[in-house]
């Protein structure tokens, strides 16, 4: 599934609740499938957000253009467009936050949908690392990782950063590790967590996934066999065809 398709499928969720209340009162599952914004009760504006994010995901427009479209939408609703605080629907910070979070979520879900057994075999892990610069990057990623890891007994996860420093750590865990949900849950009391087992794990985060290949995972002591979906004794039809062809052409092992 493409990220823009995931975005188009999202329902609109107008709400009068603030961010903390949304987190407490609306099921995570519903939030994951919805376009919402704290204290935004106008479905028409939420639809404008959905359209703008879809166009960004398609690579048709940049964030600056998306911001223009959303300001136009708010102006059409008679909303002032000069606000600067995060609670103001028109503020640059707020619009950036909404656009980035929705794009990042759709991109992550699209990547999860590509995880076939063959892909997971070659790339059994996720490397969580900084992919985008932030003006004030969080400095607590090591603490987040450690607390999440301890909460799941480091199941399928490396208990130390695989590289980096305070601002740009790289963390590694199997795709099947429960550490991703723990990170998304903000284990340890991180209230900015979004509740998803995929990036962005928290608001305005520049940390996202790269794929980690088998060799990297094994080098850091991860049990890659545990990451694979159970396979039968016999080869799948596709694997059988590969084996047959390899024998035919004398593929050099």
């Amino acid at each position: 599934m493409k990220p823009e398709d995931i975005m188009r499928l999202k329902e609109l969720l107008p709400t009068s609740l603030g961010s903390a209340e949304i987190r407490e009162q609306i099921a995570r599952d519903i939030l994951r499938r919805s376009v919402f914004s704290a204290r935004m009760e106008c479905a028409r504006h939420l639809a404008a957000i959905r359209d703008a994010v879809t166009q960004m995901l398609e690579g048709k427009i940049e964030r600056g253009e998306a911001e223009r479209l959303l300001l136009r939408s708010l102006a059409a609703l008679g909303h002032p467009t000069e606000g600067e605080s995060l609670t103001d629907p028109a503020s640059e910070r707020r619009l950036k936050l909404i656009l980035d979070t929705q794009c990042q979520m759709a991109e992550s879900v699209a990547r999860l949908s590509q995880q076939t057994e063959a892909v997971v075999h070659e790339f059994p892990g996720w490397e969580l690392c900084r992919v985008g610069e932030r003006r004030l990057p969080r400095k607590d990623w090591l603490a987040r990782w450690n607390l999440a890891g301890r909460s799941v007994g480091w199941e399928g996860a490396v208990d130390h950063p695989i590289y980096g420093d305070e601002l740009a750590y790289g963390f590694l865990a199997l795709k099947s590790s429960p550490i991703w949900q723990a990170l998304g849950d903000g284990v340890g009391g991180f209230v900015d967590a979004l509740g998803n087992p995929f990036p962005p794990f928290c608001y305005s985060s520049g940390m996202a996934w790269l794929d980690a290949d088998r060799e990297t995972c094994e080098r850091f002591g991860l049990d890659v066999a545990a990451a694979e979906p159970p396979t039968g004794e016999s080869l799948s039809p596709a694997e059988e065809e590969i084996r047959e062809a390899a024998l035919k052409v004398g593929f050099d092992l």
Partner: protein
Amino acid sequence: MNLKIQITDFGKLSALLRVVKPAGRRRLYTIGTYAAGDLVRRHVRTLSFQRHATASRLGAQPTGHFDISRHPVVARVTGDEGEIEIRIPGIGRARHDISLTTPTSRGKKYLTIPEHPAAYGKTVETLRRRGWKIFRPGRAKILLGYRHKGEKPVKLFALAEQAHFRKDPSLLPTDAEIGNAAAAAMAAEIRRVVAR
């Protein structure tokens, strides 16, 4: 921008891809294309920390143009080949020159080139909605603006009828690097299947 992945010049791997039946070929191309997508992501990620020339010159906040967490790299397989779609506006410059001309896709007479930190990554309409008063002084190809009455206007944008961006191959891995990444992942899969 779309990049085709077709393994045609890799000795026995190419020979195997010619004879393998459709399901097997699809599986190999799925893995190879995914690996090529990973290479592209890693490459663009490195760029995202290096390419801030315009923002730095203007003293503006970078827009995160190369932030791969919000610009999808989509890998897919179609029949006998794979394809990676890189959804970063302007990334086509990695393979060819790009010329922007007017009227723009939005019917505008001029392209706006930011000349002030406040204008970087913004449209004229956005700035106006944010309270900027923007005007063109006579026939000069610039836009000046101020926020509050009495403030000295600053040069926000230069106006241009066309802009030319020269090809910059460093924006993406080379075709050879992408092909090698795909081929290596396919070969690993073949080895695994044969050894099972």
